[in-house]
Structures are given as C-alpha cells and as structure tokens.
C-alpha cells in the first residue's frame, strides 16, 4: 500500500476548521501557515486523529533573499500519508518563529541546524545553539549572501 501525498487543500481545510487564523493559503501540494502559528498548527496536525502527523520527516529552510521559507515534511505512520507545510518569514536580520520542538523532539537537531546555517531563530527551543559550526562563528553559511 503506497503512501498518499495529501493535497494542500485537504490539510488546509482540516486545519482551518480547528484553527481559523493559522492557514495563510494553500497550493496543490503545500499548505502555507502563518509563521507565528506554526507551533499550534503543528500540534494540531500531530494530534488530529485524521491527520495524525506524528512523524516529522524533514525540516528545512530556503533562503529566497527577500524571505525565508520554512518547509516541514510530515508523515503519518498510522494513516500512511504525507504532507508539506510551509511558513514564510520576511526580513533578514532576526527572522524568528515558534519552535516545533515541543511537538516533535525530532525537530531538535534540525532546528539547530537551520539556526546555525540559515540564521532563523526558533522561539522556545530549549538548546538553540550552533550545531555544525563552533560558537562564535560569524554569519550563517547557507544564506545566499554568505560567501
């Protein structure tokens, strides 16, 4: 039985019913969530029996110069489906959004990595420090303006 990729619409409607102001918009494969709401939205995605996204596959960030996209690849091991949740952050100086560490502990190292390499802060992460590079390193190497 193959895993099904949920469409953005399916996830978004389910999410909107519970948290009306969390969803920004949706695309065929992606749900865009307000960055401030990401933690509560993710908690709902995890705990909702029909969505059941208890497994965070991957957490990454993409630097689009003007903004950062945070990408969450979610998997439901029980219901066998996947979804992609994104949040868009504007501003390059101190972009920050709530951590999903309380929801999935698997986000621990990935959030630290995003902070280390992309410079996106996660509020509420208990141990947000550099992971690959040493403390005191200047800059965030995966940003497009880092040379």
């Amino acid at each position, binding site marked *: *039985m*193959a*895993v099904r990729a949920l469409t953005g619409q399916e996830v978004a409607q389910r999410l909107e019913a519970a948290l009306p102001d969390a969803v920004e918009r949706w695309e065929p494969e992606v749900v865009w969530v307000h960055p401030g709401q990401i933690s509560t939205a993710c908690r709902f995605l995890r705990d909702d029996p029909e969505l059941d996204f*208890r*497994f*965070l*596959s*991957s957490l*990454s960030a*993409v*630097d689009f110069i003007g903004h950062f996209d945070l*990408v969450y*690849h979610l998997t439901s*091991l029980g219901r*066998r489906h996947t979804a*992609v949740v994104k949040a868009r952050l504007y501003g390059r100086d101190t972009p920050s959004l709530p951590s999903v560490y309380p929801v*999935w*502990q*698997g*986000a*621990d*190292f*990935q959030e630290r*990595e995003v902070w280390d*390499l992309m410079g996106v802060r996660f509020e509420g992460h208990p141990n947000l420090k*550099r*992971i*690959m*590079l*040493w403390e005191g390193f200047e800059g965030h*190497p*995966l940003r497009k303006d880092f040379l």
Partner: protein
Amino acid sequence: MPFRTEPMTVNIGPQHPSTHGVFRLRVTFDGEVITEVEPVFGYLHRGTEKLAEERNYVQVVTLTDRLDYVSSMTNNQAYCIAVEKLLGVTPPLRAKYLRTLVAELQRIASHLIGVGFFLQELGTFGGTPLMYCFRSRERILDLFEMLCGARITVSYLRPGGVFSDAPADFWPALDAFMQVFPGELAELEQLVLENEILMVRTRGVSPLPLDVAVNCSVSGPVLRASGLAWDWRKEDPYDAYDQVRFEVPVGTNGDNYDRLWVRMQEVHQSLSIVRQCVAQIEPGPVRLDLPLVLRAEAGVEAYGRIESPRGELGFYLVSDGGISPYRCKIRSPSLLNLTVTEHLLVGWKLADMIVSLGSVDINMGEVDR
C-alpha cells in the same frame, strides 16, 4: 547508608576508538552510570548543501557519495530520485532494476559494517567478527569496482538511470558472490547471534519505546527494532521495489539486540531481493537521453526519499531554473537517529553507551554533511 559520589564529566571523543568517526559525547557519570549526555558534532562538516548549490545536477552525484561513505549507492539513489522528481522523468526499467540491485548489495555491505563494528564495540578483540564482515563486504566492493570502477565512492547512478550497463562478466561474478555469501552469513550468525555473552550484553539494554522513536523522527532499522514495520521500500516503492517481494523485519523491545537482529534479517531479505532482481531483469536501455547539463523549471521543488540502510534519506531540492539546485537539503537519517541519544543512554553504563551508540549505526559523514 547512602554512598555519596561525585559526578564526573568525561568527553567521549572527538578522538575515541568507538565513536564512528569524529564525534564527541559530553557525558556526566555517576560512578559508571550515565546521568547526562550531550552529543556534540560538526567536526566533519564539509558544507555539502552549500557546495551542491554551486554545482550542476550531475556533479552533485559525486558529493552524495561522500555523505554516508559506507553506502554511497543509496545516497546516489536518493539524490537521483529527487532530481528525477524535479525533472518529472522516469528512468528506464532496466536502470530501475540495476539500481535496486546495487542498492540492496550496498545495504548488505552497510549492514555488515554496522554489525561488525557493533560487535567490535562489544569487545571482540582481534576483530574476528569484524573481519568476517569485512571479508564479505570486500566481495561486494569488488562487484562495485567491476560495475563502475570504484569501490567506495561509486558515482554509479545518474539522474535518469545509471551511467552504464553492467559489464558482461558482472553477472557470473554476482552469481559467484551469491553462492559464497550465504555460507559466510550463516557462519557469522552462528558466531554471534545467539552467543550468551552477546545476549546478556544486549538484551533489554537501552530499549527505545516506539512513541519516543516516532516523536524523535527516528527511522530505519532503529525504528523497526522498536516495533513498527515502516519501510519506505514498502510504503512508497521507488525504482523496482514494487516488482520484488520481501519481508520487513520488526523487533519487539527496541533494545540493542533487536537492532542487531533486525539488521541481520534485513541482510537476508536484501539477498532475496538481489536474487529476484537478477531473475527479473530484462535487456534494455539503462539511461535516459538527457543532456549533460540538466535544467529544471524555475520554482519547482521535490522531496525524494528512500530507505537507506540507516533510515529515511531524503533530498529536498528547490530549483530556480538554473543548472544547479537552488537549495539542496539533505535529510540525513544518522543525524536524526542521534536525537534519541539521551533516551538511549541515560541510566545505562559506560560500556552500554558504546554499544548502544554502535547499535544506532551512525555515520559521521552523514551526520555532519
């Protein structure tokens, strides 16, 4: 009478015989019992994700070889599947079979390394089981050399297929390997799998509950040992995995013994898959006629994932229409399997720590990328 002891903090690593590379654990001991543990890594960070943004799509294949350097084939496979998703192409059937075949051979080789070093960490000095594992792995690497001219950093797969068909003498050599290897595997199992010392050392040690494993994004044999039959080869069949039949070994307790057992059983299943691939493979083209320098449409993104020997290996690629990926995020199973370090180690002894770490089978090349 309570016996007061003073906590002692020890750095295990970065240079230590059993940390699988340059990896450091800051451990606080009470006597020999671990009370706190914090993994520290980054010593092998090479910036693969940044380098990938500077290279074209085919050149990145050579970078993926160096992620998890004991299973290059599956790294190539994950990346190529991601690029194929990005481009919207499907490789020819023969290429799919070849990929499945080499991926399973690589899985056997990787599990042999995992099991061998696990036993080495249990303290079989002289490295007897390790050498038996290496002996068998050597045969697989010989096959890889025959296929693509390199043993470790293979670069055999290309987006859209494999670089070239197997040479004519590959099939008899593979056949010879399939004749010899089951005997060697049986010997290894006889040596270790039911050894009483190994059992008292591993059974019930560092159990990993399933809910913790799932919450910590653990994947691969470690997740399966905790009791969930989750295997991307079954769940989302890529390449030719929908054409072959195999079982997914599942543990019950998630302890060190289960992790070892799951790996050993997966080797058997991989052998079976290799046999089926050899029986089913048909002549045909092995590579799509793609240009040397690939371009994807702007704004397209793809997340390609496979079941690597260590777990879910994913490549998240974003294209801006250029010749190289705009962003290449590597979801490395070794890094995420390390999330459970604290759950695994706290409360256990120093000797168990090394063994549990070995049972997770991390690879620092992949952790640090």
